[in-house]
Every structure is written in C-alpha cells, then in structure tokens.
C-alpha cells in the first residue's frame, strides 16, 4: 500500500464497500475480509482508492469506456493470480470490494469445485 500508516478503513473506496455490503447483507464486513484486501493491496503496491479509480475513473477525468473495460479485465486477472497464491475465500473478499465499488466481475465456478 502506498501509505502503510493509513488504516485501510480510512479509504473512501473501503467506506463505500462497508456501506454497500451492510446495506445488501444486513451485517458488517468481517475483519478477515478487510485483512484480505490489505494483503492484496500490499502485494500490488497500490491503495484501495487507486485500484478503484483505475477501474472507474472519476467523472470528468476523460477516461473512456474502453479504458475502464481494460482496467477491469486487468484486475480480474490480477485477483485470479492472487487467488492462486492464497485461496478462493481470500480472493473473493477482494472481489467483493471491487464489486461493491461498481467493478463487476464473477469468478469461474468450476475452478472452485475442481481444485480451487
């Protein structure tokens, strides 16, 4: 993460995640999910807001749909590789973070059943 001193819950995108998650599921994020996101960000050397801004640039930034799609595809692959080093549950926490921030993705299901 770019600023190791800053708690992960202080990032705007993490607040969005927590709020959206609670709204949908009626309960709070588990701490293990926040830890998973921290690990993911550390490995990547990026903070949560940077990841989301890359996938969904703020309005008026001039980034087009094609660039957004490219960034989303990149992160789908990055999370898949993260899963290879960790486990499905940990990677799914990161996917949940991305999804609740508006970055649509869904992992392959067969991989989970066949040795994931």
């Amino acid at each position, binding site marked *: 993460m770019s600023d190791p001193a800053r708690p992960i819950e202080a990032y705007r995108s993490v607040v969005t995640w927590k709020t959206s998650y609670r709204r*949908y599921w009626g309960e709070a994020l588990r701490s293990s999910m926040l830890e998973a996101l921290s690990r993911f960000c550390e490995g990547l050397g990026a903070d949560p807001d940077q990841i989301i801004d890359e996938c*969904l640039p703020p309005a008026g930034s001039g980034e087009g749909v094609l660039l957004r799609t490219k960034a989303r595809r990149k992160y789908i692959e990055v999370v898949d590789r993260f899963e290879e080093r960790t486990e499905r549950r940990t990677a799914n926490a990161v996917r*949940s973070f991305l*999804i609740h921030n*508006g970055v649509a993705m*869904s992992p392959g299901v067969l991989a989970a059943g066949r040795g994931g």
Partner: protein
Amino acid sequence: MEFARVLGRRRDVHFYCPWQPVEVEKVQKVLEAARLASRAMNVAFFKAIVVLREQLSRADRDALKTPFARHQFDLAPVVILWYHDMDAGPTDFADRRWPAVPSGAVYDALALPPLLGWSDRYVSEVVLPEVLGPAWSRGRRPGGNADVGVAIGQAVLCAVDQGLGTALAPFSEEAARTLFGVPDGWEAVAAQFLGYPLEDWEGIGQRAGEQPGPKVFEGDARTPFPFDEDHRELLRAAGMLTASDSAPWREEELAYLGRLIDETSGPAPGGGAEEEEH
C-alpha cells in the same frame, strides 16, 4: 389445466363464437400473465389496448383488417392490440421510479446479487451511464423487442388455459393509431384475438403445413438435434404433443363453420355482396 396440455391444445383459432362474450376477469387474467413474464432490466417494453368488438363499427373493424386478420375482427368479442413501447426504457431510465433496474428496485429485491458481480454502484456508475444511457439516448429503436413476444406468449397460453380460443395476427397500425389514440412511441406488434372457439383444437394438426427440414441443431448450426421418438411418445401421452396432421373431418368442419361467415360478417374474399352496417 396442466401446463403440458396447454401447450398441446394451443392452435391458431380462426372461428370465434360471436354471440358468447368473454368474461372480463378472463381478460384480466390474460393480461396479468403477460405482466409476469421475464423481461430484460425489468422494463415493461410491452403495452396493450384491449378492444371490445362491440365498441367498433363495421367500418372500424374493416380498417383494422390485414390479409392475415380479417374475419377474426368480426367474430372475436375481444382483441388485445399488443405494442412495443419504444419509450419504455428511456422513461424508466429518466424517471428512476418504476421497478426497473435503473430505479434500483431489482437490486433491492435481492434478485441481482453481488455473487454475480452486481452492486448498487455497478448499476449507478456503470450500467446506467455506460450501457443503458447511451443505448436509450440514441432515440427510439423500432423493429420490435423479443421481450414483447415473451409477454405475449404468456398471454396466449393463459387464454388457452382459460378455455378460450386465441390467435395472433398483424393489424393495421395506421388505423389503430387513429381509432385508439396510440402514442407515437408505440410500435404495433400483433392483435391477439380472444373468444370461445367454434372450431375444435383436435381438428387442426399440431404441425399442419409445417415446412420440412431441421430447425433445431446441436453444437453448431449445421448438426441437427437428434429428437428421440420414444421420448416423443411420452410427450404424446402427457398431452403436450398431439396429432401432427389435421383430422380427416377438418375440411368438413371448415365447410360448416364457413356458413357462419356469410351470416355474420359477409362473404369471404372473392364472392358475394357487401354486408350492411349493423
């Protein structure tokens, strides 16, 4: 009625009992069935105007006719004029009021879960501005919409389940626009006739007049799907598949029913005098 039998009994009915009204509650049930049909983004792309034959003059009925729908307008007590509402998507997008995806109602109903990548923000930040917005801002998109067909399909089957005869046919879009005040953004799709059938469904072969050749394929568009004849026997026993060819008495039935036409709505094309207004 069992679903399989509803499928098995559906035929395009041409002869409706002109003197037996259709109960208004049956019409409502037909409409309710259409309303429950699957539709993309939960948008009601269909709209319908129910027209009672008794509200139409002979001239009105004639104006609505097309080569595929002539006597049905004279015989059927009820006709549902189905439309494709080309403004439905843009309206739902602009209003965010109706329970379509743009309003957030489908997500809130827990029908589009994060399990499959959906979130409130995906709808508001991606689906609306990048997918639906551009698509629905390009203006009306004529040429029908499969979801309208999906809704009509449920209406047709529901009519059969109610013991009614029914059929779909094109009607005069221009005449209907004038007669019923149809909005500019509605595109005519089909007239659905409703009435008690005078012809027996068993008379018309389920595959009567069907063109030969494979229509269903497997794996690619060249390899015909091998339908299993033993399984077809089971579907016949269940009442879903019925006689492929028309009954031997069909021609005679049509000849008897044809007499009604001379009495009710004037002669078939090619003969006889014009019926007077009534």
